[in-house]
């Protein structure tokens, strides 16, 4: 599904990723943990193709194709989804309009027929029902006036609607109380399938009680320092990141 080879990336001229290697097979859930400032969010932005996050070395191979030259929207259309740590507000644009635009943009890119209004609404209703979300959320402007929990649930809804092959969750657990955490995790787990993979980025082990990973990686000082099973997360919870903290870590 995804193969990251010796990835180097800079932000505003500063090298943040210094040779990341990672392989995610279809159906797998990987967790990336690490101290603040270790490059976790940078990795997610680099994978999504954000402007200003420059790849200076190495490759990102997704389904056999090098992604580095592709625009964010092209990567999205190919099935890469990033759940944002801080979802962005789009005033005046109803959630349903936004989702409709996104779904049809992706379908157009893939050469599929666009969904008409009725087909789209039907699909959307089914998804909100599946996720136990109220339709009221669809009428509100994207993330405007949403609580922290609502914003994250909205990310999960978008994920469910777009059905990505590779979901990257960037600190989705930050700012969530335990109930919200459970709802979000249920949503993510519902998407688990043999042909879909997830990369869960988190600072705390707590989320991994709900989204159980196949592999856990420790990212620190711009590199994967250690890889293990889900027990590695527990170990980190106990010992902290002190073992991995170099001079650059906060």
């Amino acid at each position, binding site marked *: 599904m995804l193969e990251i080879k010796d990835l180097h990336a800079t932000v505003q001229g500063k090298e943040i990723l210094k040779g990341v290697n990672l392989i995610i097979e279809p159906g797998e859930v990987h967790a990336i943990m690490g101290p603040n400032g270790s490059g976790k969010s940078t990795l997610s932005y680099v994978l999504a193709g954000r402007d200003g996050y420059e790849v200076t070395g190495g490759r990102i191979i997704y389904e056999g194709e090098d992604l580095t030259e592709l625009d964010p929207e092209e990567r*999205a259309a190919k099935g890469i989804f990033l759940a944002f740590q801080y979802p962005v507000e789009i005033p005046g644009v109803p959630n349903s309009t936004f989702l409709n635009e996104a779904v049809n943009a992706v379908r157009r890119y893939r050469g599929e027929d666009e969904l008409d209004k009725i087909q789209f609404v039907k699909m959307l209703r089914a998804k909100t029902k599946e996720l136990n979300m109220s339709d009221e959320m669809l009428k509100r402007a994207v993330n405007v006036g949403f609580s922290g929990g609502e914003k994250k649930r909205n990310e999960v809804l978008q994920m469910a609607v777009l059905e990505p092959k590779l979901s990257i969750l960037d600190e989705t657990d930050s700012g969530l109380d335990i109930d919200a955490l459970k709802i979000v995790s249920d949503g993510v787990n519902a998407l688990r399938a043999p042909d879909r993979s997830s990369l869960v980025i988190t600072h705390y082990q707590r989320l991994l009680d709900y989204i159980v990973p196949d592999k856990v990686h420790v990212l620190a000082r711009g590199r994967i320092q250690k890889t293990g099973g889900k027990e590695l997360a527990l170990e980190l919870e106990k010992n902290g990141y002190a073992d991995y903290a170099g001079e650059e870590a906060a």
Partner: protein
Amino acid sequence: MSATAETVEQVKSISGEKYKYGFVTDIAADKAPKGLSEDIVRFISAKKREPEWLLEWRLKAYRRWLEMPEPQWSKVQFPPIDYQQYHYYSAPKSDDDRPKSLDEVDPELLATYEKLGIPIKEQEVLAGVAVDYVFDSVSVATTFKKKLEEVGVIFCPISEALERCPDLVRKYLGTVVPVADNKHACLNSAVFTDGSFVYIPPGVKCPMELSTYFRINEMNTGQFERTLIVADKGSYVSYLEGCTAPMRDENQLHAAVVELVALDDAEIKYSTVQNWYPGDEDGKGGIYNFVTKRGACRGRNSKISWTQVETGSAITWKYPSCILQGDNSVGEFYSIAITNNAQQADTGTKMIHLGKNTTSRIISKGISAGKSDQTYRGLVKISPKAEGARNYTQCDSLLIGDKCGAHTVPYIESKNKNAIVEHEATTSTISEDQLFYLRQRGIPEEAAVALVVNGFCREVLQQLPMEFAVEAQKLVGISLEGSVG
């Protein structure tokens, strides 16, 4: 290759088909010679077989116009206008033999409207809109006349109204926008060739949206239409106006006047989607849109609401205003102005509170992109007698890129201690965060910009009648093409 096809080809090659409405219809026109003089004013009046009083009115305007200075206070910049280079009268040949039905209308003319996306027949059937088409200067087809006549609504070209109900026209013409209001309006008074006249009798709710499509076709033609809408006591009307013009390298002048009169308990809703040719990327060509629009809420509890979506024209100079004379009358102004490339716009409104408990509401959304420059200019004036007057103004500017400008110039004059005047203004940009978020969901950059801008304008778009709202939303996207990346 016909001249039309040739032009279309030419336009395509120059513009990369960016301005969709850039085609020219090949119809032999009946034109006045170039230039402006008393003789031309007489020619126009004679052509239209006007009564003597109107000729005198025009001549008076012409003489005033000669002496009046150009308005200098706006922020727009352009070289001096050579008024002698324009034709002040242009009508499709068949003026003497007006078409009695759509079947008699020149098929090429109908094809023009089809290219504009407003096939007459389709509109008749689907939209239920009565459209008074203004082609260059003369209205060529008025639909749904019968249905309107049944309820006593008069909706016809103003030249026809002069024959049908001269007293009504004479009673109201020039009473809201006086002949010498400003140089552009004065010119219009001297040389106006057509436009719509609407009269809604007391107590009648107009059974459909009334609509006029204006289009400038002839080369070097100024378009000076004059619209007069009178809503008698307790009546209601919603009027839509849409504008496009073919592409020309030279600047064309459009100096229209719109006057609205609302009597006791009457309401007029006036919506405009203006998409005149804006000129090319470097600012060559395009329409000078110098328009005077004003409504008088003469009666108690009357209401006038302006909604405008201004995306076209090289220069827009336009301030649809309300004079709130009647007690409890209400004035509203909802505006979206989009400027891209080298476009300039100086637009806003005036709310003049004269009556007691008058209220006004101004919502202005300005979007500047490219190297365009835009100014919101608004006056809220509360007279000493306007006890309990209230105004709320909200001006939001959105900047796209770092070479455009947005300016907000509110004037507030309150001479009444009890009046409440509120003004809110914001300036923002489309953030990189927003664009990345939308693009990450698969929405390409230009569509993402259009989505954010449509969201920004939503409050105003919602004011538009359904059939216009869809068109306006698309227009927002089209106008901003090439503004990012």
